[in-house]
């Protein structure tokens, strides 16, 4: 499909969303206490499209929720009745607006995990039913490093529409047929994009790239061999003295997807639910088996699990690294553990 650019004024965008909200549930960034969170937008005046950095919890929560009921069942005398929760999911239509390029990249990575030999139908159904309206950044925060993970400040795929603010309007890139169809009924709200708007976006991106590039870092995709070589580097021991095993980094990472599964049931042992919930490879329970054995007992091995998953295992598994340079883990880590520092140190050692 040919890339297509349009422009829409800020006002018209709100109009458009108002109209779309009749058919779709709209989720987007808004302020809560000091944070930007992505949440249901009931009142469009709460929508904060231009925000610094990215939301606290990434949009993965809309595809792989922190806790999710997979199916419910009723235990009868000689039968079990099962209700697949997927059925309800299929009916939902959603628009996710205000998603940053790094997060769009992360969804592309999650797709590679959840759609392969087996399909995770919950994630895929939600992906199909959700329209992604991305937005490019205005400024960066000091933990952003998407340039080094090839996931920003501009993305090429994974969105239906991508907005870039140019003065009082938005340049809209149509990224998919779905995106095109969505706005085709509202032609009157859009105008064709003049060339200078497209150029303005390029300039914006360039200045962002320049800012981020001031960090001295290698491209993360090229770290594979260095990482493999340094599996027993002393840095891991040092980190294990700092890490609190709190698991926050996993929960905020847009590409961490591990989960736990368990059954919840009522007192009568009649009505039950199978539930999955986010888990963290930093917890001892993550690998504890019935005999009590834990496969990653040393804190060091658990830290390595996360970092190596991002930069090595992921490449083996899905062909790409799974860090998108969003910097969330750096922001939330109470111990100040910084994936960039780790990479920089190992890279410099070469």
């Amino acid at each position: 499909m040919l890339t297509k650019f349009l422009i829409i004024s800020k006002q018209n965008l709100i109009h458009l969303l108002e109209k779309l909200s009749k058919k779709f549930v709209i989720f987007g960034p808004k302020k809560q206490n000091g944070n930007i969170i992505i949440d249901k937008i009931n009142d469009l005046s709460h929508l904060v499209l231009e925000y610094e950095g990215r939301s606290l919890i990434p949009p993965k929560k809309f595809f792989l929720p922190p806790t999710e009921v997979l199916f419910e069942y009723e235990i009868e005398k000689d039968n079990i009745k099962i209700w697949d929760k997927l059925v309800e999911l299929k009916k939902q239509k959603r628009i996710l607006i205000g998603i940053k390029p790094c997060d769009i990249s992360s969804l592309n990575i999650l797709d590679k995990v959840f759609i392969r030999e087996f399909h995770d139908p919950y994630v895929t159904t939600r992906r199909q039913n959700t329209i992604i309206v991305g937005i490019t950044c205005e400024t960066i925060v000091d933990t952003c490093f998407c340039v080094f993970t090839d996931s920003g400040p501009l993305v090429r795929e994974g969105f239906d529409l991508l907005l870039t603010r140019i003065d009082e309007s938005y340049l809209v890139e149509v990224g998919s047929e779905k995106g095109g169809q969505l706005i085709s009924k509202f032609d009157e709200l859009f105008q064709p994009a003049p060339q200078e708007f497209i150029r303005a976006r390029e300039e914006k991106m360039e200045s962002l790239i320049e800012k981020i590039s001031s960090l001295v870092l290698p491209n993360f995709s090229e770290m594979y061999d260095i990482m493999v070589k340094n599996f027993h580097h002393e840095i891991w021991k040092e980190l294990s003295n700092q890490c609190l095993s709190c698991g926050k980094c996993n929960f905020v990472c847009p590409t961490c997807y591990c989960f736990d599964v368990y059954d919840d049931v009522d007192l009568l042992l009649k009505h039950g639910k199978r539930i999955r919930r986010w888990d963290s490879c930093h917890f001892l329970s993550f690998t504890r088996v019935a005999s009590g054995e834990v496969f990653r007992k040393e804190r060091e091995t658990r830290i390595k699990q996360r970092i190596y998953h991002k930069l090595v295992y992921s490449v083996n598994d899905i062909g790409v690294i799974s860090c998108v340079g969003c910097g969330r883990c750096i922001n939330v880590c109470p111990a100040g553990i910084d994936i960039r520092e780790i990479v920089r140190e190992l890279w410099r050692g070469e």
Partner: protein
Amino acid sequence: MENPYIPKLAIIKDYRDETPDTRTFQVRFKDLEDIKKFKFNPGQFVELTVFGYGEAPFSISGGIDKEDYFELTIRKMGTVTSALFRMQRGSIIGIRGPLGRGWPIEKMLGKDILIIGGGIGIAPLRPVIHYIKLHREKFGKVILMYGARTPKDLLYKYEFDDWAKFIEVHLTVDCGDETWKGRVGVVTVLFDEIEVIPEKTIALQCGPPIMMHFVTKMLKKIGFPDENIYLSLERLMKCGMGFCGKCTISGTYVCRHGPVFCYTEVRGFLEKIPEAGE
């Protein structure tokens, strides 16, 4: 498209006690369609649901030669397994699978086979023995070495006589009793009883990590090329489809890429795995 998270209903057709804490269950799907569709390779596993209690992975331990049911041999360990032990014949459970990659049957054809099992680790190896029985002419010499803690802990005793008719059977226990007349000691002691030509033999092993560690070392010592050594690994497992991340070792999913691995595959793992003689 079918939702792979939803178990198919099945019935506990029958069960028999193997040891005081281990039981073999015969499982038959409720739905005829499901019975027809269910084909497994030796070494594969299923996810078994006891409704209200949860789901757990178990190797398929029998049924290759059966039309309408398969077998699982299960040790009572925790929530799911204990609930299963409280169930009676006719009770309904849920099954997902077969899942995972089994033993390398293709590669084994025409070769000699050395099967090494420890404790309940014999369970995923039993279908191989049954397969060999059905297709005896396709294999060379076949040797089974099987060890358990005590004579009481030996599984499938009632089949040993039959097996001995078509393969070599070597047994040992860690600690014998007055009835035991065979070998005493860990499984590796049996190596002095057998004769193998490592280059044309495929070794299949499953057992506790410590056993596999020493067996792998021994196999390598007597000249087994790495690519002839296979082992079945066990890790905490939830979804069984390569999503939940619980079973990964160095990024490899035991559920999806395994549970059966060639030694060449696990040898390169960055994480130490004692099972693999590292």
